[in-house]
């Protein structure tokens, strides 16, 4: 039923648009995307805002199912039937399209100066010379907490690691709440919400990540092993039977008010806002000592690029420049709290939780998940192994040192850093 409706809407809009184009001249741009959840936002908010400013350019948002997107897009690009604007997956999937000449080079696009190098890293060639997608949104890691529970127990959001564990001890001693809602069953929770969440504080964000890429640091160095050691200390604070607790279990445990802290990614915000009946707050990953610089994982997730075979590249560039503008950022970030604009200009957001998350960008340094760029190209796959080992460390199957050694050995077997 839904698909039918969607098809009808798309069909209708494309017919209308082509009819419109016939009168109003110029160009019709079609956007390829996997974000079919965002269809309404594009049609009701983003596209009208753009078209009002740029008469003569029509835009059609044409999403496909997330699981089919990569394959469908590749097929369409090969057949020459893909839309003008391509929504970019981060890292290798898009890089592959660029090296095959399917995506145009956007390094000199006006508006690109609005983005930092970290923001662009997901859509930049390995040598950093060319950028081929405009960064659209990122997700930030941190901890969401149950404000009512914290008030009841007289806890303030912890800033340092000692305070963090003191708070956990207090919640545990009280016994009303499960201190932390996380399970190791689905593996990725332990890696993404655990290791990649708290890790940047230890390896100093970009500094450590780039050193790892260059081969100057190893995963067995102390700054990469320590996050594992901290994760191992989480074990007593997780709920009963956390070994078999899945990600949806954790979400429900928290939104039902049975857990006090949820190691989170900002994409939870809109889900939690509708489900939780209590007040929520958020704090960034605690630093080791008060006054240390804090680092956050501000992971690039969605970008938008130009089909190299587009028939109206100028109109498409006008559109992309608009996507790079603060105006787009503001509409987008407010429509989808939790998916943050990567634009350097601060965006005003109405959602308090989203505001809290994004405020960390000012006081902390941003980085992306350490395993995503380049390091997960070979076998064994570093990202997958990090999932398994993070869960192993929390379960107590492996010590932090053993886990780190396994990861480094796996990486060494295929990755030769460029000298």
């Amino acid at each position, binding site marked *: 039923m839904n698909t039918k409706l969607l098809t009808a809407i798309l069909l209708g809009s494309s017919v209308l648009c082509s009819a419109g184009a016939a009168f109003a001249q110029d160009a019709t741009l079609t956007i390829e995307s*996997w974000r079919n*959840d965002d269809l309404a936002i594009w049609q009701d908010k983003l596209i009208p805002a753009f078209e009002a400013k740029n008469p003569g350019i029509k835009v059609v948002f044409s999403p496909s199912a*997330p*699981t089919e997107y990569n394959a469908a897009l590749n097929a369409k690009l090969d057949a020459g039937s893909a839309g003008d604007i391509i929504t970019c997956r981060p*890292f*290798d999937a898009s890089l592959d399209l660029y090296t095959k000449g399917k995506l145009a080079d956007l390094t000199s696009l006006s508006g690109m100066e609005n983005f930092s190098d970290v923001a662009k890293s997901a859509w930049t060639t390995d040598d950093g010379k060319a950028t081929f997608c405009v960064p659209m949104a990122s*997700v930030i890691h941190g901890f969401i907490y149950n404000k009512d529970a914290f008030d009841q127990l007289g806890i303030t959001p912890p800033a340092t690691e000692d305070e963090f564990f003191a708070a956990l001890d207090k919640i545990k001693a009280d016994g009303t709440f499960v201190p932390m809602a996380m*399970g*190791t*069953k*689905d*593996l*990725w929770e332990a890696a*993404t919400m655990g290791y990649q969440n708290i890790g940047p504080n230890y390896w100093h964000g970009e500094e450590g990540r780039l050193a790892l890429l260059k081969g100057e640091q190893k995963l067995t160095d102390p700054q990469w092993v320590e996050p594992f050691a901290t994760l191992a200390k989480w074990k007593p604070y997780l*709920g*009963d*039977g*956390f*070994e*078999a*607790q*899945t990600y949806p*279990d954790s979400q*429900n*445990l928290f939104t039902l008010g049975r857990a006090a802290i949820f190691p989170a*990614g900002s*994409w939870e915000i809109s889900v939690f806002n509708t489900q939780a009946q209590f007040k929520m707050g958020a704090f960034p990953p605690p630093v080791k000592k008060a006054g240390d610089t804090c680092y956050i994982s501000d992971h690039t*997730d969605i970008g938008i690029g130009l089909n190299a075979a587009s028939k109206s590249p100028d109109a498409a560039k006008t559109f992309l420049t608009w996507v790079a503008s603060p105006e787009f950022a503001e509409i987008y970030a407010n429509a989808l709290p939790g998916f943050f604009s990567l634009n350097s200009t601060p965006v005003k957001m109405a959602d308090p939780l989203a505001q809290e998350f994004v405020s960390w960008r000012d006081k902390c340094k941003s980085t992306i998940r350490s*395993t*995503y760029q380049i390091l*997960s*190209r070979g*076998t*064994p*796959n*570093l*990202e*997958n192994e990090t*999932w*398994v080992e993070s*869960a*192993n460390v929390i*379960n107590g*199957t*492996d010590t932090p040192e053993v886990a780190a050694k396994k990861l480094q050995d*796996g990486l060494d*077997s295929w990755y030769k850093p460029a000298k």
Partner: protein
Amino acid sequence: MILTLHGSGPVGVRGNVVRLDAMKAFYVHAELDRDRAETEHMTAPAASKRPFRWHIAIFLAPAVLVYTAIMILPLFGTLQLALFRNIAQSQVFVGLDNFRTLFGDPNWSVNFWNALRNNVWFFIIHMLVQNPIGVVLAALLSSPKLHFSAFYRTAIFIPTILSFVIVGFAWKLILSPLWGVAPNLLDLIGLKSLFTPWLGKEDYALTTLGLISVWQFIGIPMMLIYAALLSIPDEVIEAAECDGVTGMAQFWKIKLPLILPAIGIISILTFVGNFNAFDLIYSAQGALAGPNYSTDILGTFLYRAFFGFQLQVGDPNMGAAIATMMFLIILVGVCIYLFLIQTRLRRYQF
């Protein structure tokens, strides 16, 4: 974000790759059966020259063509794919290099042997639990004194027709330490202390999944053996009773020898089914078959290699090499059964 993490892979496509191994094995099996039947039952044909019987070819054609197109060709396609490797965007013939990688490179071989070991354990659970219980259930069902046997038969068979996905999720919920009924039920009988999050513990996860699979498929051996038991003529049973062989002795001395061929067929079905298993593990534990790869079987290992997972890019060539190994393992198993076991089974004709 959530969508990319939870997107399930194209399971159906993989189905073809693996199942065709099973079907091939069956094909060999069926063919050998037929050959034997022919040599046993057919008298030597008249030597006189007959015209070529076209109608046989024509009647066979639809099945042969469809089977060739969707089973035999993909099978050879898989075998061929295993001999190539993608180098600089083009498929290059590399001989047995993929197999050398699979067995020589510890990054692959450790996973392969782990998956094979787990698979063997998965099979052993089925052989030790599913099939004996299936025989017992069938024997109970065929007892004339049992009331409501049709009800029991249906109730026990129903899980077999459920989808793997439903079974996987239902059991995940039943065993969930947070919302599951298992902890409460154990509490009711005072055994709460026995509860652990089975699916999350390295030591128990695979055995638990094996038992879930047994729960699901117990109906199949039960039905086949039930049918075999029913086909035993009453005269044989009566003769046994006249000779004073009754009760348990009757089962062991008369019925069991008569249903041994059915048990043999069930064993081989179990073997093929287990070594092609994938769905239950995938739906309950995910493609990484956690915790710490303890539930990784050949099917999930193949899936990760062939289609990739998350950031891991799929490698169809290595995937095909693993699929080929699965095919060979199943082929060897089926051959051992056919040549060493089935030929020694005595069949009785009534």
